[in-house]
């Protein structure tokens, strides 16, 4: 399922907004590698791990992998927006912990899930997001500082509310959100619908380009088609082969699609690119900078709170230490996905690929029995490599 979200994003009309365009007649293969470096790296890793360990390329493992990716992935979609406006949010990991604690406490207090979850999203996600956004947007304090402060505040709140210990959940409905599966049959139907929609959207894009007189880039079209076919084939294999689409994966896919659509096709998305590209010009062009920043910081906090709830649901309980260092994984996914920390350029599609890359690395290395200490070192090196590649590519 996660695979379609990235493939579809590649075919979105605005994909050229942040991505490097093709350079014409120069070496085709080289420019192809440049344009799709992260995707190729992901592909190579999957193949390498598949050969290295038989357990890797199985429906069961890949299904679990996709579920592991969702928690960071959902946050990373929000982080893409924050980084796009040249901001940062370091508090998301703590928000995950706090929202897990608050939601489980509300359930313990006897509230129904249908009340507890929205309430958590509102209080924890909305509250912290508005707080962060207000300081950043109103007083122009660097978001790094504000959200660094919130990182400790939210963690402190989580520890205080929980008394420092884990909170179990007894509600019977709650575990569904993070743990259940859409049955294989239904999953197959859902995927089928998506295949049809994707083909339709690619077809329509080509037609529109013709109509506007934009040359249709055949190479790009073929790449997209291949990725699309490969992605769906993989998704069919994984999700119909093992219990169906996991609920959190479905939620993540929805959020990723929404993120891609909003950035490419709405006023709000345009404003984010404008704000990140040139804040002064954005203000003088009549963009309400305050409101836009508030919205972005609130969105990411709500998404982080949602991640916390899904995590608590999967674990059937919360611990105040949930989500530690998640902010770094989310930022890494965004950066590996090609979004510039300087703001103004980036795509949610890239972020999804980045999140998958990190997920595959974690999963594959664990399967191979690589010691966690080494895993950290390797992950760090990959992040540095990805950014280095991005920088030298842009310098040209």
């Amino acid at each position: 399922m996660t695979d379609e979200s990235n493939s579809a994003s590649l075919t979105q009309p605005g994909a050229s907004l942040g991505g490097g365009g093709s350079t014409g007649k120069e070496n085709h293969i080289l420019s192809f590698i440049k344009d799709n470096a992260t995707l190729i790296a992901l592909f190579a890793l999957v193949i390498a791990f598949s050969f290295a360990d038989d357990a890797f390329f199985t429906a069961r493992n890949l299904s679990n992998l996709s579920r592991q990716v969702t928690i960071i992935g959902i946050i990373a979609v929000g982080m893409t927006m924050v980084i796009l406006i040249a901001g940062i949010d370091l508090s998301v990991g703590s928000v995950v912990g706090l929202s897990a604690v608050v939601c489980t406490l509300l359930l313990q207090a006897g509230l129904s899930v249908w009340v507890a979850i929205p309430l958590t999203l509102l209080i924890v996600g909305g509250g912290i997001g508005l707080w962060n956004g207000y300081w950043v947007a109103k007083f122009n304090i660097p978001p790094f500082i504000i959200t660094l402060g919130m990182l400790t505040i939210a963690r402190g709140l989580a520890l205080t509310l929980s008394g420092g210990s884990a909170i179990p959940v007894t509600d019977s409905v709650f575990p569904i959100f993070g743990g259940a599966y859409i049955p294989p049959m239904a999953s197959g139907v859902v995927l089928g619908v998506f295949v049809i929609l994707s083909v339709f959207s690619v077809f329509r894009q080509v037609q529109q380009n013709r109509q506007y007189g934009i040359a249709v880039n055949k190479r790009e079209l073929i790449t997209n088609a291949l990725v699309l076919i490969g992605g769906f084939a993989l998704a069919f294999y994984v999700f119909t082969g093992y219990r169906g689409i996991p609920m959190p994966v479905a939620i993540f896919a929805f959020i990723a699609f929404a993120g891609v659509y909003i950035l490419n096709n709405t006023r709000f998305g345009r404003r984010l690119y404008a704000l990140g590209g040139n804040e002064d010009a954005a203000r003088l062009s009549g963009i309400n900078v305050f409101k836009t920043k508030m919205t972005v910081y609130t969105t990411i906090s709500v998404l982080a709170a949602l991640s916390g709830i899904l995590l608590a649901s999967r674990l059937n309980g919360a611990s105040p230490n949930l989500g530690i260092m998640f902010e770094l994984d989310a930022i890494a996914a965004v950066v590996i996905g090609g979004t510039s920390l300087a703001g103004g350029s980036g795509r949610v599609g890239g972020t999804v690929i980045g999140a998958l890359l990190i997920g595959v690395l974690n999963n594959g290395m664990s399967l191979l029995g690589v010691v966690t200490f080494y895993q950290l070192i390797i992950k760090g090196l990959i992040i540095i490599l990805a950014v280095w590649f991005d920088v030298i590519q842009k310098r040209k």
Partner: protein
Amino acid sequence: MSEVVLKMHNIIKDFPGVRALNNVNFEARSGELLALMGENGAGKSTLMKVLSGVWPYPTYEGDIYIKGDRKRFANTKEAEDAGIAIIYQELNLIPGLTVAENIFLDRQFVDRFGKIDWQRTYSEAQKLLDDLGITDFKPTDMVQNITVGKQQMVEIAKALSINAEILVLDEPTSALTDKEVKDLFRIIRKLKNDNVCMCYISHKMEEIEQIADRVVVLRDGQTIGDVTPIGDITLDQIIVRMVGRDIKDMFPKKQMERGAASLEVKNLSVSNPDVPGTYKVKNASFTAYKGEILGISGLMGAGRTELVEGIFGAYPQQSTGEVLLNGVKLDIKSPKDAIDSGIALLTEDRKALGLFLNESISFNTTISSLETVSSKILGIINESKERQIVGEYVRQLGVKTPSIDTLIGTLSGGNQQKVVLGKWLNSKPEVFILDEPTRGIDIGAKVEIYKLLNYLVDQGVTVIMISSELPEILGMCDRILVLCDGVIVSDFERNKAKKETIMAYATGSAKGRAK
């Protein structure tokens, strides 16, 4: 006859798909000022980069001779060692260091333990300033505390400290006040006496007349005609060389009937946040009418930009006063409010405040009026409508571009400005304020912009134009306000305005408000 110190011979420089320089040939002599003229995009900057080693040999073809020796610089250091110093439009000084430290940056005098010899640094810097006859700042002054004009002197002193024999000045007066320009010219004359060879890049004809010895014109990467002594060529002939054709009517002014009062400004003040208690604009009151172009003149720093940005709501915390449109008082707290009320402002600093350089023409055109191309509530952008609208502006305004998806950063200044104009036209303004709309764009594009202003006035838009170029103000405006130190000191009708009188008011030597 003085010695030829610099000779550029058949210089060719290619970029992917473009030949930026195509057989450039000229020579410059010691003790002379050679004016290098050309429109934007003519290749002047590229030429300077070849000369200074930014583009090393063999990324270009042709030969550079310094005092008869062929030089092939591998980097900027080698060019510097050969005695070439370039003073770019954007100065390369470090604001948080002193004048002396900037002059000797990376070449400080140190004792044998590596400690900086401050005594010597300051006294050597003082010597250089004395040589240039500079008395109004000291080596110990912080660069951030002196004016741009003085900072330029620091750059010149720095160039002299490396014994530069060839000094290239790239549009040195673009940010200077009149007095600073005079000081600069005094120093240039002194350098001529000291046998320094200077290449002077500029658009400004009056300057060239004043200080150039010879002139060479660059167009489309080629030198047009020979290096010509300034006495042997008229300004019109220079323009013909630059543009490649005669500009018959530089200011195509159309006279129109003055209509009703449109924008009224009453007692607008903008305080100076850096110095509490002082004002950048003080009690400015004026009225702009339909059917006329209102010009705002004044020196750099007189508060022109602050006045219009104050009207536009750019400094809600710092400004007081009233703005009325068609007799109705407006409550403008942000540029968004101003735009919603029907006011548009084309900013002076196009790159920093007007453009999104990494985005397309299309993006830049619709960004301040996204409502016109998107659904009301959800804000979903209608791509085909957007393409149609943007395509229409690109066609109407004559933007030269392969497609509306082209990144705006790759266009020339004139074409960029046309896109910015399109962006504001799409917001359908009633009052269109243009702050230096023709700065840094070529003559052909200037005339097109003047024609557009005429058209807008004809359509009932109230046009207000700020300009530093008096010929432009006198040629195009019906009424002219003059600002001096944040105060509107006079208000001329077009037929009563003269260059000298405007200057007298702008410099503060004439007082009072003429009617």
